[in-house]
């Protein structure tokens, strides 16, 4: 039996975390959560994770951006896949309607917009974990 894959969720919306954590756990992933970027980055450094689910808009602004950049800069973690899950359109679509959400701030592995279909989330997570595993084995 293989060890379950470890996923870290960094998101400031506890209601959203309460929604997606059980979905991932039911799919046999080990999930840890952090409600702010500081706590999240400390957790990320403290133990190895196979995937990071990251929110963009936290705290006073786009603090998820800072987390993604820090991780990508560090050669120790920069291969770990980062999946952005953002509700930014939901919150701010009235500013620029009809535009795609594609933050060009860091090298990311994927982006999903809230609200997410559980099936879509699980497919994306499984694809990224497979790719990560293949990269590790090269």
């Amino acid at each position, binding site marked *: 039996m293989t060890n379950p894959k470890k996923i870290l969720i960094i998101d*400031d919306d*506890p*209601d959203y*975390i*309460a*929604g997606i*954590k*059980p979905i991932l756990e039911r799919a046999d992933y080990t999930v840890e959560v952090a*409600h*702010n*970027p*500081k706590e999240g980055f400390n957790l990320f450094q403290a133990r190895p994770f196979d995937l990071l689910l990251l929110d*963009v*808009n*936290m*705290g*006073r*602004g*786009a*603090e998820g*951006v*800072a987390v993604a950049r820090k991780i990508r800069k560090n050669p120790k973690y920069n291969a770990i896949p980062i999946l952005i899950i953002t509700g*930014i*359109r939901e*919150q*701010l679509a*009235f*500013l*620029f309607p009809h*535009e*795609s*959400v*594609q*933050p*060009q*701030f860091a090298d990311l592995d994927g982006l999903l917009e809230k609200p997410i279909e559980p099936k879509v989330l699980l497919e994306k997570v499984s694809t990224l974990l497979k790719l990560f595993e293949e990269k590790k084995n090269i």
Partner: protein
Amino acid sequence: MTNEYPFSNEVGDMLYATHDNPITNCLQCGTCSGSCPAVEFMDHSPRKMIGMIRANMKEEVLASNTYWSCASCYQCTVRCPAGIDIAELMYALKRYSMWKDQYKSGLIGPAFSESFIKMIVNSGRSYEPILAASYLPKFSTFDIVQEAITASELVFSGKMNLFPKKIKRIKNLQNVIRRIVPIGELS
């Protein structure tokens, strides 16, 4: 599954996500409430609001008009002996309540904020006649007449333009906003 994360932590995260929660440093000295020029219009004083946040009284906090009445004068922030940025706390509560769609009904603040932001993004300037008209339904007839009189006086004295003006190179401003708000590049 229910959310068990305390409201006081949520508020702390919104304020200084990369630092410790400043709300827990509050001494309840009341300097903020004593300095606030808008306290008489508030359901709860700023000191009481911080106490309520610490007690995780989420519904009561969000249902109050306190943070919408804040004039952002920053007297509370400057005078707080515990170094809490109370004016920023009021902004955080505004953002939170609009995000979660939980705020006191009948207030001008939420409609005003949205209209104001849209106007800045589209023209680069605030233009009072459109701004006032966007939340006109919230006014009583008496208020509308009062606003019309004030507006006419401002126009005749040359303090307000009759027609809206756009800044030059508005696209550049919009690109700056796109970088700040990370919605992304044009598709």
